[in-house]
């Protein structure tokens, strides 16, 4: 299963303060570990929200507003996409991450939808059930004719 790992922004990251050399080194090592473990599918850092924009959908209209955005806590400044076996494995890997910001910080772990998550019609049991029903209907049709 895949997870998106979201690093929450803080004042520094929003102000465009670059990480310290030490943090860059530690993060580089950590990323290397993720690649060596074969779990890292993608990962990027994000520019401050001042370089971004939002499009609002309301009353059938689309309104654009440019960054920066005030509610820093709800913003993110980077993400990874990992392929792991369980949420716990993702948590264990996140616990090994160097603190991504200069001050206190938070990393959020969210599961990505997979094919299996969509629609129960994909389960073999239901498919089987459907086939049985069809056979029964055909049988009935034969008896009638």
């Amino acid at each position: 299963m895949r997870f998106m790992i979201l690093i929450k922004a803080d004042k520094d990251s929003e102000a465009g303060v670059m990480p310290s050399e030490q943090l860059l080194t530690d993060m580089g090592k950590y990323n290397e570990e993720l690649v060596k473990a074969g779990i890292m599918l993608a990962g990027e850092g994000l520019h401050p929200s001042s370089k971004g924009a939002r499009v609002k959908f309301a009353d059938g209209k689309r309104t654009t507003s440019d960054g920066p955005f005030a509610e820093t806590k709800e913003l993110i400044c980077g993400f990874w996409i990992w392929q792991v076996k369980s949420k716990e494995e993702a948590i264990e890997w996140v616990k090994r991450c160097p603190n991504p910001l200069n001050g206190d910080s938070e990393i959020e772990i969210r599961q990505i939808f997979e094919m299996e998550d969509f629609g129960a019609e994909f389960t073999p049991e239901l498919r089987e059930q459907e086939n049985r029903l069809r056979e029964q209907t055909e049988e009935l049709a034969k008896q009638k004719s």
Partner: protein
Amino acid sequence: MTVPDVHRTIDAVWRIESPRLIAGLARMVRDVGLAEELAQDALLTALEQWPQSGIPDNPGAWLMATAKHRAIDALRRQKLLQCKHEELGREYAAAQEDAMPDLDAALDDDVGDDLLRLVFAACHPVLTTEARAALTLRLLGGLTTEEIARAFLVAEPTIAQRIVRAKRTLSEKKVAIEVPRGAELAERLSSVLEVIYLIFNEGYTATAGDDWMRPGLCEDALRLGRVLAELMPQEPEVHGLVALMEIQASRSRARVGPTGEPILLLDQNRARWDHLLIQRGLAALKRAEQLPGSERSPYTLQAALAACHARARTAAETDWVHMSALYTTLVQLTRSPVVELNRAVAVSMAFGPAAGLELVDALQGEPLLQHYHLLPSVRGDFLAKLGRIEEACQEFERAASLTRNVREQKFLLERVRVLKSDEISSP
């Protein structure tokens, strides 16, 4: 944390840590089976203690330290009971002298090298292919016996037996835990890649069970491949295999219809392809192609073929001319009539059905393809396109009689029906 929570966390820690734990221990005790038992012992200790004591801050280091102590006990027993392995004894003595700095170093240094040695031991040719696959998933994928059994739809005791026997064989045959060199490396590496691709294919086109895909196994194989690519960055074949698997896996979502029926590549909705995996696959292919020897590497060539489809935004945009050329090289390398049949399809797409038919006709006497339904099926397709309807129908009927897949039979006979009715209705 509740006890089940702790257990789930321990499972996760185990999956992350067990490969390098076992690899480091295998170097110390020079026995894969013993190394795995020692690591398992450490896991059991964790399962006993962590629910009470809480999970340590550095669970990996905790497991290492615990396993290491067990290893020293084991070495002591070996030393006392057998006194056979002098080198081990010396290692043990040295270890005892000053708080075991050498063993610390043994576990911490060259994790990559240790892992690589373990890969080659687990995929050693003295083992059957099935045993290699189970052992690799167990030792390097961090899967439990139960998970492997579920993945292969085999009873758990069967897999447990298979693993026990494999470990015993490695001990009895005194298989050295080392990375082979020189000419042997190529041969042994192909055995490793074969195992990973087998695991992938078992997931991609499941040979048993209701689902014709088991994505979990594909993910395990991909993970093993990606790990190996980092361990052996100079081997084009490794990157080639990773590229091939990434690109094939990118189509998983698109290759099954709503009622579970397979959808052929050219009919797939390309918007449903996984573009992240495609990008990863193309990047791995690029890495492979930049290395010397890649032009004669079968996995890289297959990945390049898969990439031709991945790069085409629509089926009509497929670069069949390039694909024909790639197949020509692949045929020269593999001498496989099945690959030659694929080449015929690419050639027909690139240069017309007559050119394809010429190649297929040359394959008619091929003993390996005598009962292969795709030979008459492909030939029938070319004949139909050339307007030779009667011959085409004969070939499709022959193909239908050769396949045991009901869905395929239906598909072939439907083509016959359509061709015949078209012939009657057209003036």
